[in-house]
């Protein structure tokens, strides 16, 4: 690990300036991902700006939305009364991620900004356009069992990336139409969750539409009706503490066994959380039944493309969608 400076400002302005003024400075909060990346030589910041001294931990109900401060811990959010009452899907997704120890360290902002778990990204011996643009994508012709099937670059794939975003929390945030509140030297702005993360395109090194000096202050989740029929399904290689092969955030609003509103988003399948608008639309007005769910699931798939080792996802994804919807609707 390269030697680095470390500061812990207590004023927001000082933190932003510290990062804005040094191209090799990075914010650090829980450090559950950044420290790993530093140890393995994937990133080598000269300066770490520890934001844990900033007052960004609050979870509060505002008119029309729930605001969760960027420094709220994953474990705190997952058991917070306001979250459980208003957006239980978020709590389910958070509890599906990482381990108890990690959730006690990891923050909301850090969760949203965690880097991919693509193995080619984590070993500098391998080519990786995300780590070192222009070196190629190690996974494209390599071992790509865990990789993307949606949102792939239509340009030269060798210059792009087929890694997936690893967060569970973000899949639920995507489904719930969250907004990310950020601040930088140019002031505050709000980014719709769907626009926050990027598809790889020609610059897979960038995960998010965020300026370098910008800092996440909070996520805001609009009030919603999805308090009862929600399910976060995570399919993984072991029962806990593994990244998703495929995950599904499903939320339904039901009346008389008919679907009034629906939300669906996938994890483990794209460079960003993958929202299924068409499938959602197809569910609305339909009766709760396995057939309804199957039809919706099929609508998710036309744009999917598989590689040598992840073709199973083409079958697994629609099945997982059906399973998640069944669980959300308590349909056995």
């Amino acid at each position: 690990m390269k030697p680095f400076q470390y500061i812990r400002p207590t004023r927001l302005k000082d933190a932003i300036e510290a990062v804005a003024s040094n191209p090799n400075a990075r914010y650090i909060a829980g450090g559950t991902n950044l420290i790993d990346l530093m140890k393995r030589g994937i990133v080598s910041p000269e300066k770490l700006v520890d934001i844990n001294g900033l007052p960004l931990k609050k979870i509060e109900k505002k008119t029309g939305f729930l605001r969760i401060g960027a420094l709220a811990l994953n474990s705190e959010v997952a058991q917070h009364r306001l979250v459980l009452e208003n957006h239980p899907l978020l709590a389910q997704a958070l509890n599906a991620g990482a381990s108890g120890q990690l959730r006690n360290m990891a923050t909301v902002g850090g969760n949203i900004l965690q880097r991919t778990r693509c193995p080619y990204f984590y070993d500098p011996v391998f080519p990786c356009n995300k780590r070192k643009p222009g070196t190629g994508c190690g996974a494209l012709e390599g071992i790509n069992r865990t990789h993307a099937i949606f949102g792939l670059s239509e340009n030269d794939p060798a210059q792009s990336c087929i890694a997936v975003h690893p967060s569970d929390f973000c899949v639920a945030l995507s489904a719930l139409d969250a907004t990310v509140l950020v601040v930088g030297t140019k002031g505050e702005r709000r980014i719709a969750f769907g626009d926050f993360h990027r598809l790889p395109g020609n610059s897979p090194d960038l995960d998010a539409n965020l300026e370098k000096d910008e800092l996440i202050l909070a996520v805001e989740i609009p009030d919603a009706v999805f308090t009862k029929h929600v399910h976060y399904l995570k399919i993984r290689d072991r029962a806990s503490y593994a990244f998703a092969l495929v995950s599904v955030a499903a939320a339904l609003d039901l009346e008389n066994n008919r679907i009034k509103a629906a939300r669906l988003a996938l994890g483990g399948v794209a460079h960003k959380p993958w929202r299924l608008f068409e499938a959602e639309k197809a569910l609305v007005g339909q009766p709760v039944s396995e057939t309804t769910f199957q039809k919706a699931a099929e609508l998710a798939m036309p744009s999917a493309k598989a590689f040598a080792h992840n073709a199973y996802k083409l079958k697994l994804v629609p099945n997982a969608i059906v399973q998640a919807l069944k669980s959300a609707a308590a349909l056995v």
Partner: protein
Amino acid sequence: MFNAKLPEPSLDRVDGRLKVTGTATYSAEYPLENLAHAVLVTSTIAKGRITGLDFKLAESVPGVLAVISHLNSPGVPGYPPVKQPAERAPIGTALRVFYDDFVYFSGQPVAVVVAQTLEQARHAASLAQVNYQTEKHQTDFEANVSKAAVALSVQRNKTSPFQDYDRGNPDAIKTADVKLESTYVFPTQHHQPLEPHAIIAVWETDDKLTIYDKNQGVKSAQGNLASAFKLPRENVQVNSPFIGGAFGSGIRVWPHTIAAVLAAKKVKRPVKLVLGRELMQMSVGSRPFTVQKIAIGASSDGKLTAITHEGIGQTSTYEEHLERTILATRAMYACPNVSTRYRLLNLDVNTPTWMRGPGDATGMFALESALDEMAHELKIDPLEFRIRNHADTDPERNLPWSAKTLKECYRTGAERFGWDKRTSEPRSMQANGLLVGYGMASSLYGFHRHPSKAKAVMRTDGSVVMQSATMDIGPGTGTAMTQIAAKMLGVSPNKIRFDLGDSSLPDAPGQNGSATITSVGSAVHVACEALKKKLLTLAAAMPNSPLANSRFEDITAKTGRIFPTANPSASISYADILKYHQLPQVEVTEESKPGPERDQYSMYSFGCHFVEVQVNPLTDEVRVSRVVTCADVGKIINYKTARSQSIGGIVGGIGMALMEESVMDHRFGRYINTDFAGYHIPVHADIPQIEVYYVDQPDVYVNPIGSKGLGEIAIVGVAAAVANAVFHATGKRVRQLPITVDKLV
């Protein structure tokens, strides 16, 4: 006979408190003065030569004491001089550290950085520049399988068990009523103990070396280092009292050990080297990638008529690692016609090594899967099929078993598990919307016993010190040995101290091959017996001794006293015996070793596992929901530690079945999943209730204590039982481990 609950007494782990309170000192934790830190620089290519080393940047890092490579290594005197021109190492050469410019696998140590602090050493290591001339490597098993051949060591040894083997008629398979042939693929797996390999190397003088090291055999590490550095054995001191798991990874001395010793020599300071998790997967050995083909023939009434079992294991280009892969097939079932073939495939990888249940875990996955396939084909219950083909004597050696109660294991396991509720058709059982599958498999592991010594010391206060250079990598060696000594001497366990993990203690084998209880336990038994005899003689010599004419057979020892069995009130305490004779202590060192019984009996541990899985019919996720395991390992010394060992084996077996795999990208000849996020081992949520039962009967022929090894059979067969349960649940036979979702969808 079977013990569902722990019968008393089961001594608590004698070092349990030390371990759970963090006061047990592990290899990397010795707070030596002037300690320097070493970090390895490892190869990024799988085959080629080092053409240039640029350490200027690395050496400029503050605190760096040395950067050592083949160009400036102090040298290992046991290595031959480098030939001119240099040549690749011939088969049979352990990797020579910092010796020449050849690269044999990706992750091979090519240099070591030593610095004042770990951070400085890590940073400097990241700045070390190594240039290579790459050569085309071969790491892909399937692409190279045609090059597999009989190992050179086997070609040279006509009595090797790995010679081609034919019993009966090798062509019998062709005429079998029912015939099945399948290929089973076993991936590379790594041991992944939670404690990484670690060493502190200290040159006390120019010819005296001390190491604090994670290994499974202090005596073999001592011998290895003594010959490498041309030192008298007694000048090498190996201290390894606490080991945080090893599973075979510590049986041999790996390159990092030599690198640390060289580094300490170079900087003339104690040097600590701890492998990072990625090097735990790249620079210590693995269970080898193995492909097996089994053809099995049976009569329509369910008798095995022929089995052919071919195994091809992966090894490095410089060493041959052979393991038992195909051997179990010769002894497991009563089958008149059996043929086995074993081949090795040399690839540009690190040499594999023994990993829990070596060979048998691999081979029995294939054999027990094949048995299940045949049972299904014959429409016979898989357990009934095994009972029908039970080997009442060893069909390979034509000898009686020293003891075998496998049928009782089957019976009790089936009963406790509820095997009779199994409906035979795949996909026929469901619960809560999930598919349910029942699977079982047999387990066996050969009996190993080695000569072993133990020293027993009685002190004036009636306390006992036992010593042997044995190891505890986790099973609770000290606890079991204390119990054996306590029973023989009639002394309370809390008055006994058992020392191990120190190369200056009496000779003992390393901890491997499930041989510790049987070898060292026997030595402890005979040492304590000899001590008791000596004390009896001393007691008999005391004035008016009630033991004056007692024969050894007629005395009893209890609560630190001995007395004629017929007259318990006439007792003398050990302390009084020593006091009377004014002896500071009485000591004996005894050796116990196997005798001719090996030629008269065939000796194995046996067992069986019953597994229930639940599979989501939509998402194909498999979870093991219940396990019952039964083992026949002779006399159980300590139920608690035995049970823990069985549970550990089952956990390892579940990992083997469902998730463990070291995945290599053959374009680079390098593993891609070198951390715990990528290499999955089971977590608590993967592990269901595990019930453990033993046939607790001494095997009177194997050794004086009647106990056999348990460590390996605990894991052997588990993966097959899981795979068989998955087949029963889903109708899908997975012949390539691990059984992950992508193979079932």
